[in-house]
């Protein structure tokens, strides 16, 4: 069940060595975003709006500037005049005007917590005191938080120039719908009308936060000659460079971004919040400036994932074959256009073979923080609705829910919702593995129920640059431009060691800054082990070829007569046949045979394949309190090939538990005043160790033919199925179909005791 499909044996791929950055991280030596300090550094702080929607009439900073120890004050007016420019950096596209306005409001604040002004001072205490001396005059405006309210006629408009994209002809009036996307094929209405069995439902959820434990932090130092350095923790230091340079209208090469260790991101660290502001404060003060968010600021002002309203209708014939599906959803974008609806449309129902399919997604602006990518952005919300509906349909049909999924599962060659046929996907293999797993047939106790759900994520490739270089003693350095958020340095070293056929410890991997390596896209989209891995393999192969050429030159034999075998150059023909040389021996003579040995691979990695998963969840529901306990959880996923299985399992386990938190407890709670009521970990309740059992994983390996070792992205898929898996398990335990997240005790209790 868990065996790779291919029989090819690897020496390193699939092993579980200790990560190269491990000791630093278990001893407290590793430097994260908030840990870095520069000589002469000032401490910054940001003033944030108390109102969800208001016009800024005036900002008086004079008293703050006069306070002893204050070296600079900045407002939105300190940004240059910008022309609209949509940049495809980070995850998805953003208009640099929106990026700038989100860093510091210009004429309006669009959500409670929106940054309004910033100061830099000699101590954090003075910086905080200075904030209290800034006088902002607001003209409060009506605000809107809800999806349907924001789309209603006469709703408060966030952006007067917002005309819904994706609607032809262009709407005559601006609205809060920033984008509408429709995809599908066939005659859905007719097929639904003719279906023997149908289900329909409306599902809702509030925004949730990525919940990385490290708050955003950076230090910026902008010199008099225009050159600058930024130290920060980010999923993409090239994205930080591109966005910061663009909003400040300066050349990208004038900024050198040093990636520090990153304390979690999950998509939420693929943009800039602080860096441009720290740059402005640094230019004004002439000193390095540190800006860091508190947890409160992280909740109020950094991107949550959108909440949603999703309507689903699915029809099947009497044999349980799906005939039609209609899915329409609305997602919160928050204050600025976001990217989740497009991925949501693509991730809704393409995992089933249905001749008549229509999926419609709308991005809705409202007075909440600007939504940002969160692990498989846009997929878990719509998947919750679809996989719940399929569970309901299985009940109506009297067919086992796993069997129903197998009967309709898409395979290679079947069309996705876009019409493009699926490549070599492992969805059916996941369902078969679930069926064969002892969990699926294990007995349940009283008040317990079992749910299953499946889901997928498209994954990605894209730009990555890698340099593999040989040291003079025959050891190797792999430099990438991909921040390591969960063990990727180990995976890169494994792949290079596999190509070079040398011990893992002979290869060390680092994350290089923006001046030391070429452009690399963010660590996101489950792309890094695939795309950067591909570049590592190419660069290592080039180094291996060079090692053979150098050996040939050193032995004075034709280049074609040397091969790389068992980690050494071997002469395979002529008088010197059988002569061998290690990388160290070749390196020692490199300066006399052509110079240093290194290779660069700068690629736009294509050939990525989506990942699929099936999750089985057992819950126990306390009928008195409505509390839901996760009793057992098994996550099955097609991972292509697991380069470092520990970290693949870790991705699956972490994603599953984030999904469990989303299902059971997590939600942004707003009061009537439009202010966030739970901006802290006490009230925004993420899962703790005692909330969950061990998360069993099954790695199905259906290798990707377009990656040298078969890699498919693994990081995002595992957060997609848990929402419905938990809901379906609660239905199994109670007979109640919960369609609104989170399924917290009060909601479950209300469902169990409708009379109160």
């Amino acid at each position, binding site marked *: 069940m868990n065996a790779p499909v291919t029989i090819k044996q690897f020496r390193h791929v699939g092993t*579980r060595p*200790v*990560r190269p*950055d*491990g*000791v630093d*991280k*278990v*001893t*407290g*030596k*590793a*430097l*994260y975003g*908030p*840990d870095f300090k520069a000589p002469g550094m000032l401490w910054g702080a940001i003033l944030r709006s108390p109102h969800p929607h208001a016009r800024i009439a005036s900002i008086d900073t004079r008293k703050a500037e006069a306070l002893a120890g204050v070296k600079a004050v900045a407002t939105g007016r300190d940004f240059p005049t910008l022309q609209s420019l949509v940049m495809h950096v980070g995850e998805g596209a953003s208009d640099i005007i929106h990026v700038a306005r989100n860093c510091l409001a210009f004429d309006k604040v669009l959500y409670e917590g929106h940054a309004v002004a910033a100061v830099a001072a000699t101590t954090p*205490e003075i910086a905080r005191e200075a904030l209290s001396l800034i006088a902002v005059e607001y003209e409060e405006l009506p605000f809107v938080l809800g999806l349907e309210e924001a789309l209603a006629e006469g709703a408060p408009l966030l952006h007067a120039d917002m005309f819904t994209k994706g609607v032809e002809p262009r709407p005559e009036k601006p609205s809060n719908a920033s984008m509408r996307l429709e995809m599908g094929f066939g005659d859905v209405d007719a097929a639904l009308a003719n279906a023997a069995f149908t289900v329909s439902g409306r599902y809702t959820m509030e925004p949730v936060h*990525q*919940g*990385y*434990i*490290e*708050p955003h932090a950076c230090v910026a130092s902008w010199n008099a000659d225009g050159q600058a350095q930024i130290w920060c923790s980010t999923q993409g230091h090239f994205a930080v460079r591109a966005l910061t340079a663009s909003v400040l209208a300066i050349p990208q090469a004038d900024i050198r971004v040093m990636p520090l*260790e*990153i*304390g*979690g*991101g*999950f998509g939420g660290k693929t943009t800039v919040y602080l860096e441009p502001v720290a740059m402005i404060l640094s230019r004004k003060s002439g000193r390095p400036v540190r800006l860091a968010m*508190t*947890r409160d600021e992280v909740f109020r002002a950094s991107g949550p994932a959108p909440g949603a309203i999703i309507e689903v209708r699915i029809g099947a014939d009497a044999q349980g074959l799906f005939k039609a599906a209609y899915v329409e959803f609305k997602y919160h974008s928050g204050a600025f256009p976001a990217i989740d609806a497009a991925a949501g449309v693509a991730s809704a129902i393409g995992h089933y073979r249905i001749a008549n399919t229509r999926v419609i997604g709308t991005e809705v602006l409202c007075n909440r923080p600007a939504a940002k990518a969160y692990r498989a952005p846009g997929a878990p919300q719509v998947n919750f609705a679809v996989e719940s509906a399929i569970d309901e349909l299985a009940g109506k049909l009297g067919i086992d829910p796993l069997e129903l999924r197998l009967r309709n599962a898409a395979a290679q060659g079947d069309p996705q919702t876009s019409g493009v046929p699926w490549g070599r996907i492992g969805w059916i293999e996941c369902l078969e593995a679930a069926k064969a797993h002892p969990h699926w047939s294990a007995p349940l106790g009283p008040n317990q129920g079992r749910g299953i759900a499946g889901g997928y994520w498209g994954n990605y490739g894209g730009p990555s640059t890698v340099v593999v270089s040989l040291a003079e003693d025959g050891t190797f350095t792999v430099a990438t431009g991909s921040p390591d*958020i*969960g*063990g990727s340095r180990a995976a890169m070293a494994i792949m290079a060691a596999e190509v070079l056929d040398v011990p893992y410890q002979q290869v060390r991997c680092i994350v290089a800054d923006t001046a030391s390596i070429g452009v690399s896209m963010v660590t996101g989209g489950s792309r890094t082990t695939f795309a950067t891995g591909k570049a590592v393999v190419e660069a290592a192969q080039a180094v291996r070829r060079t090692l053979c050429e150098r050996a040939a030159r050193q032995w004075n034999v034709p280049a074609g007569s040397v091969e790389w075998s068992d980690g050494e150059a071997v002469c395979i023909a002529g008088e010197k046949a059988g002569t061998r040389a290690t990388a160290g021996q070749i390196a020692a003579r490199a300066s006399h045979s052509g110079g240093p040995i290194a290779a660069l691979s700068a690629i736009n990695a294509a050939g990525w394949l989506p990942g699929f998963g099936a999750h089985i969840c057992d819950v126990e529901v306390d009928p008195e309190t409505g509390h839901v306990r996760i009793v057992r959880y098994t996550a099955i996923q097609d991972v292509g090939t697991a380069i*470092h299985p*520990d*970290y693949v*399992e*870790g*991705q699956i*386990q*972490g*994603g*599953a*538990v*984030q999904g469990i938190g989303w299902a059971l407890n997590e939600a942004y709670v707003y009061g009537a005043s439009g202010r966030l009521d739970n901006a*802290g*970990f*006490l009230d925004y309740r*993420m*899962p*703790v*160790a*005692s*909330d*969950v059992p*061990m*998360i069993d994983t099954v790695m199905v390996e259906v290798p990707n033919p377009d990656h040298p070792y078969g890699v498919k992205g693994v990081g995002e898929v595992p957060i997609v199925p848990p929402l419905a898996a938990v809901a379906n398990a609660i239905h199994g335990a109670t007979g109640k179909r919960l369609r609104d997240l989170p399924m917290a005790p009060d909601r479950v209790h209300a469902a169990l005791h409708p009379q109160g």
Partner: protein
Amino acid sequence: MSRIHVSTTVNGDAAEFLCDPAASLLDALRDSLGLTGSKEGCGSGDCGACTVVLDGEMVCSCLVFAAEAEGRAVRTIEGVAEGSVLHPVQQKFLEHAALQCGFCTPGFIVAAKALLDRNPDPTETEVRYWLAGNLCRCTGYDKIVRAVMDAGAQLRQERTPA
């Protein structure tokens, strides 16, 4: 506002610093003493990333005033390894891949060591409840719990006379 002079012991060494009366022990460790291994994830005692041991008691250093360290003994993540020899909890975190981003790891290691110092043979449930004050968003806790239990097993083996 005048600053307070504090004399304390950190990881067995005498240490002193000046602090603002409102400063937390975490601020003092990180900003005055340069010990940035203890992390601030929330500043409100909810995430455990700043966990240290104060006179033998596990505390969130963000909830302790810096001035309270006067005359007391603080042990931080930087004092868990003995020189260059990792503590079994640290070693097992590496072997079990019990960290992904690693930001919560110092707090978990300090807390797990405090547990095993008290109870070298905890059940899985005891481990999970002891560590319930430490948030990890990456791992789903599975490998952390396994690492801590495995470290307990190793410590018990080391302590058993041959």
